[in-house]
């Protein structure tokens, strides 16, 4: 059986990649995917702990997170489409119209 540490390390790597993606990339779509990566890193940690402690609440949370992620995708993609229609690109650095 693979020890818990492995899963957690993988989860941390995935999370870090996601966070770095959010911070570094300028393409909104990529940022979006990075966010998904972070969420899934958290999911991995959840299921790993759930398995370790034989508790189903961790798995239950994963379902919640997936549901929320799905909803977030729906809203986020709709926003990106709307922004693209106006600006003809999705570079987040260009999106500073509200800056004072």
């Amino acid at each position, binding site marked *: 059986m693979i020890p818990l540490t492995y899963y957690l390390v993988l989860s941390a790597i995935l999370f870090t990649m996601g*966070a770095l993606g*959010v*911070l*570094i990339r*300028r393409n909104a779509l990529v940022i979006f995917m990075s966010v998904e990566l972070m969420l899934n890193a958290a999911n991995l940690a959840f299921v790993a702990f759930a398995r370790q402690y034989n508790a189903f609440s961790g798995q239950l949370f994963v379902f919640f997170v997936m549901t929320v992620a799905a909803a977030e995708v729906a809203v986020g993609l709709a926003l990106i489409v709307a922004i693209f229609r106006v600006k003809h690109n999705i570079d*987040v*650095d260009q*999106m*500073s119209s*509200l*800056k*004072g």
Partner: protein
Amino acid sequence: MLLSETAISPLFSLAPLIVFLPVLGLLLNIIFGGRMGEKAIGWLASVASGLTFVVSSLLAYGLWAAHGETVVVPFADWITIGSLHIPWNFRVDTLSVTMMLAVSGVGTLIHIYAIGYMHEDVRFKNDPKRFRRFFVFLNLFIAMMMILVSGDSYLMLFVGWEGVGLCSFLLIGFWYDMDTLGRPSWANSNAAKKAFITNRIGDFGFLLAALTMFWAFGSVQFGEVFGKAEEIAAAQPAVIIAITLFMLIGVTGKSAQIPLYVWLPDAMAGPTPVSALIHAATMVTAGVYLVARSWPLYTLAPDAQYIVAMVGAVTALFAATIAVGQYDIKKVLAYSTISQLGFMVAAVGMGAFVAGMFHLVTHAFFKALLFLSAGSVILGLERGHHHLAHHKGHEEHEGKHEEVFDPGDMRNMGGLRKRMPVTFWLYIIGTLALAGIFPFAGFWSKDEILLDAAKLHPEIFIILTTAAFFTAFYMGRQIWMVFFGEPRHEAAAHAEESPKIITVPLMVLAGLSVLGGALNLPGVHTLGHWLEHTIELAEHELHLPAWLEISWGGLNPVVALVSTLLALLAIYISWLIYGRKPLTAGQKDPLKKPLGFIFTGMENKWFVDEGYWAVFVNRYVDIARFLADVVDWRFWHDWFHDKVIAGTYVWLSHIALNRYADQKGIDAFFNGLGDLTKRLSAFLRRLQNGFVRSYALAVMLGVIVIVGYLLMK
């Protein structure tokens, strides 16, 4: 003195009605009068007054059945402050009931007369609403007069005293904005003000008397004051003298005695029924009633008594001389009233309370008769004048008729005997009663006063007899001028007799003027025995000359004969001057030439009004002007308020508050606050760089910090 409950006749519980019936009448007139006709308003008021007379009669009967024992009917608590307790009680005794009967009886007749009189008054054609107001005031007057006579304390008496003063003011100034012919004028309201202000001076004296009494006796209830009077008089005789003299000031105001009589002649500006009711028959006798009511105090202060008697006697003579020189029919009667009030005040001042009250009652009858007949004469002339104005047609300018005609001026009259026979005979009866001719009412009452004066103070007897001589003279002069000779004005030639509603009440009064003497005939002394229950007359030890010792049941033939002969002589002289050769139009008074400046004095009221103006009124106006202009306006307003207060305030606000506190303190603080915010925001806005990723980094760093903190904790 209060009888036990069981002994009080149930009749006495009616006592409060004497006040509340007229009040009910006036309330009904106020509420419903607007929808009732003139007649209904007048009759409602008359019935209210008539029922008051009925109740007064019932009270008199009850009192007679109870052998004149004083009854105090408790009605309500009025003032209760600590130990001070003043209830509103109705005092029913022979004295108050006598007043009640006179007031409500004469009052009712005058109410009825007023229905006719006020209807005839030319001025009502424009303003029928005043009809209701007139009767509301009349009823209010009856109510107030009843409070005055039925009150059981000096304070309650004072309420009525002020109340009748108010009604007098309201009624003198009834036509406050026009004169007798309806032209705009403020003369009437000025007369009302004069009456009110002069009365206020007298009322001040009354108030001083009441307060001194409260200070000395600790009470103003009649019972308690009179009970303690002797005790206090023994300890502090000055207090009694002070109270009685202060009271005399009140009496001179209300009963028009020297020096405060000046308002009464001017009060004739009121409608004639008012002159008859208030300024001849009832209200002005309140002062006489007050002295009679306060007999236990006055009998303890002989000096004050003498002063009162002297004031009355001098007034009687002084006013009688002025009456000789007057031309206005009502002014003659006004001065006659002052003179007759002088007789009454002299009588009650001498301690002849019964004689004073007797004269009060008979005078109410014949003076009301005279005034109302004078009103009838004036109306007759107005009708004649109206008739003329109609007949002369409309080709002449409307204003021309109304230029000079005064329906009250006796020089415009003459020959009215034929035009107004009923009024003429009524006037003759009133005149004979006033002049004191046997056997009319005035003879008996005046004779009683003269007899008492002769016994007690011969000098007052001489003054009063002289006054009585003048009385007969000016009344004779009036009769000859008004009713005999030829008409001196076309209006008099066309005068018409008054309707029944006016003459019938006069006939009743004429009957009373003839028979009023029966109230207190010598030998019977009905009124004397009746009042004895309330007033105990002091027995004087007198050494009289033989001719004064003669007594035919209380009538002294010498005094009676002297006064009657003098009266007849005066009437004869007046016939010689005015009757034998009647005045012609435009002719001067025949007395003017032989008497010279004396007559000018009489004609001009001895210039007393002018003197008062010069000495008091103008000085008062000067002081008022000084206070208003210099003290109030220039000192207080211009200097103190504008310069000192406003100036200091402006300086303070401008320099201290505006420049320092506001600009340098408050403004600086808040401007600094604004600057700080601006600088802080200039710094903080750099954070808002518009790059989403840097925000994300900030969020992450924040999360790391918070999580790190939670882990390290």
